[in-house]
């Protein structure tokens, strides 16, 4: 049945522009200021954030450029033309595993933070199960719907972040920004590594760009989209430093949420703003998680061809749940998250170099 042009599964490049920040903004920023502050002095973390950001934008742009040069071909299709079908299948399968891992991690982390700030007694298993069911409902529906959710939720998320910053302005103490440029190279490098991890959202460029109908401008749009989280992270980080100072920021579990904690709404109609902040932030985390799972399903679908999407979801979701519940404590979880962050980054760079070089050598592009 013919539908409206815009109502079908095709994605416009503006939707990629929104999908990039929606995917990247998630749990990372809630503790990012801590990891920045703990390795840098004063407010020098911003350098790391910017350097990391630039690297992330470059990677995004390059990958997008590569994907866009094979318009309307799925990832497995064009990688098959570059590096034979079996290798392409393996690469895609690793992406599936990565997607599942990311989903599992998010599902677990959201449960942990919710337990910390909202539901103290409720078991983590239940909180994450509810969230996972929500994700399944979201992914089980149309992919176009997910992109629409991005456009619906991102403004809320940016708005609440803005509120947190604006209502903290009277707590700002510019003195905390000093001393500047005192961090050694080692600290900056540590910070940069940490910041790139929080920008990791390259699955979108690998898999969704192939769905864009006219991908000429998409690399640019994806890069612009990538800039949104960089700016947001920078502003939130500086706000944390100016409000708490470096030493406190480095010691707070979730500095961004603590930032929301001290917001006083004029008129005092609501206290403990952090609960509201985190609740709204769940929308951002939902977008990240849903897209991660959707990418995994999309990749899996491209390997197994005809299998029903819903069936794949029901196969994948128990794996996600069990993986998410596996880490026992905070430290294990943090190792798990660092591991996933690095593997996603390194794997993206590796696949890009592999595909790009082979394509150049075999003159496929």
């Amino acid at each position, binding site marked *: 049945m013919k539908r409206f042009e815009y109502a079908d599964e095709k994605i416009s490049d503006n939707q990629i522009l929104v999908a990039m920040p929606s995917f990247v903004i998630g749990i990372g920023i809630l503790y990012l200021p801590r990891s920045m502050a703990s390795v840098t002095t004063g407010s020098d973390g911003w350098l790391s954030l910017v350097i990391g950001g630039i690297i992330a934008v470059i990677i995004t742009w390059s990958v997008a450029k590569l994907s866009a040069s094979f318009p309307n071909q799925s990832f497995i299709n064009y990688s098959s033309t570059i590096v034979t079908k079996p290798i392409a299948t393996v690469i895609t399968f690793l992406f599936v595993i990565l997607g599942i891992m990311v989903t599992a991690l998010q599902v677990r982390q959201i449960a942990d933070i919710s337990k910390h700030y909202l539901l103290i007694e*409720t*078991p983590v298993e239940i909180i994450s199960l*509810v969230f996972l069911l929500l994700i399944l409902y979201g992914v089980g529906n149309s992919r176009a719907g997910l992109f629409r959710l991005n456009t619906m939720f991102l403004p809320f998320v940016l708005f609440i972040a803005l509120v947190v910053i604006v209502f903290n302005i009277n707590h700002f103490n510019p003195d905390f920004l000093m*001393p500047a440029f005192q961090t050694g190279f080692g600290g900056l490098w540590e910070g940069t590594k940490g910041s790139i991890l929080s920008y990791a959202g390259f699955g979108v460029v690998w898999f969704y760009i192939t769905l864009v109908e006219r991908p000429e401008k998409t690399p640019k749009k994806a890069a612009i989209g990538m800039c949104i989280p960089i700016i947001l992270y920078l502003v939130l980080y500086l706000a944390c430093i100016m409000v708490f100072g470096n*030493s406190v920021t480095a010691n707070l579990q979730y500095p961004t949420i603590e930032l929301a904690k001290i917001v006083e709404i004029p008129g005092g109609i609501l206290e403990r703003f952090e609960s509201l902040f985190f609740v709204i932030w769940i929308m951002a985390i939902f977008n990240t998680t849903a897209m991660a799972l959707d990418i995994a399903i999309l990749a899996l679908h491209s390997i197994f061809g005809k299998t029903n999407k819903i069936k794949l979801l029901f196969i994948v979701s128990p794996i996600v749940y069990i993986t998410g519940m596996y880490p026992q404590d905070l430290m294990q979880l943090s190792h798990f998250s660092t591991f996933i962050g690095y593997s996603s980054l390194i794997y993206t760079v590796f696949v890009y170099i592999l595909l790009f070089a082979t394509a150049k050598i075999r003159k496929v592009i």
Partner: protein
Amino acid sequence: MGNFLRLMSCSCLLILTGCWDSLPIDERGFVIGSAIDMAGEIQDKNYDITVTHQFVVPGNLSNLSQSGGGGGDKKAFQNISATGQSPFQITRNMLSLTDLIPNSEHLKILIISDEVAREPDLFSSVTDSFIRDHEMRREVKVMITNGKAKDLLENESDTEQLPSRHINNIMENNIKSLELIQSVRVGTLHQYLLNDDSYVLPLITLSGKDINYNGAAIFAGKSDQQVGTLSNEEIKGLRLVKGDITNGMLPFHIDGELMIYEINTANSSIAINTANPEKMDISITINTEGFIAEMFGSRSLLDQQYINKIEKEISKKIEQTVNNTVKKAQQELGIDFFNFSSILRQKHYDVWKKIEKDWEDGEKLFSQSKVNVTAKAIVRDIGASDKAKDDGME
């Protein structure tokens, strides 16, 4: 249909087993104020502390309950004390003493007895749970008291049913006075504890039925223990150095007559010359603007010469006040509660890295540094009338 059944069974499961966190508001006991005292004598690092929580009894808050509920006669609060090793543990133990489940989300004040505060490292330990616990807000005001902290929570005032709220209100009204330091929130205390800088906390005392909010307790940054107190006059000096004054009065004498200078705004700028780390040069410039609020003499203020003289006199008074406080910090205590150290860290990071260990301890560089105070006071206004009485009337 199958989907529907699955959904139904899932939601039934949730509804039947759910509501882990659900607890109606009337079954929670809201702690509005806490006090920490030392229990018994100190015996070689083994001590027990007593924590007193002030629970609100909402039904007895007269302005709220419409069905009467006793109102005036019954107390709107209930103080429960328990003794133990750590505040968190004690709070849990309190469950056996009350039918309410303690909830600290509306905690306003935390009063710590100076006995606890003077003990090395104990202060940071007892406040830890107030910083760490997710229920606590970072806005909880922290203060020190001379004597039993518990007594402050018992002290009912005529205007306010809840002693904690009364103290909280007192702490909020300090903007008009130069003799009071600003209230310190737990969030700020966290920052104090993490940095090794020294700091001051508000000090309140109970004299008879009245709660006096004057003075401040000085804490050494390294051990987080109270090492002294500041008198009103000394606080003036501290606040002038800090410079964040919006309102405050400064009495001074001119030609033997008392005159009161009301400060509207005061700014201070601190510059530290680190050329010689052994003897650093700290110069403080204080600029104030204000008006004459009261005068006992009878000279006309519409005289430029006289105004200049007054301004000079005020500046002298300010310098003298600040120097007094600085002297106390440098000589008497050797504690840098002005936080010159944070200026060093922010502006002279490389120097600071080298002398960090020797600032208050070791070489005691702080005590050796030279502090210059320059004040410039401006009288913007002389009030509505020039003179309230004439020369001849004297």
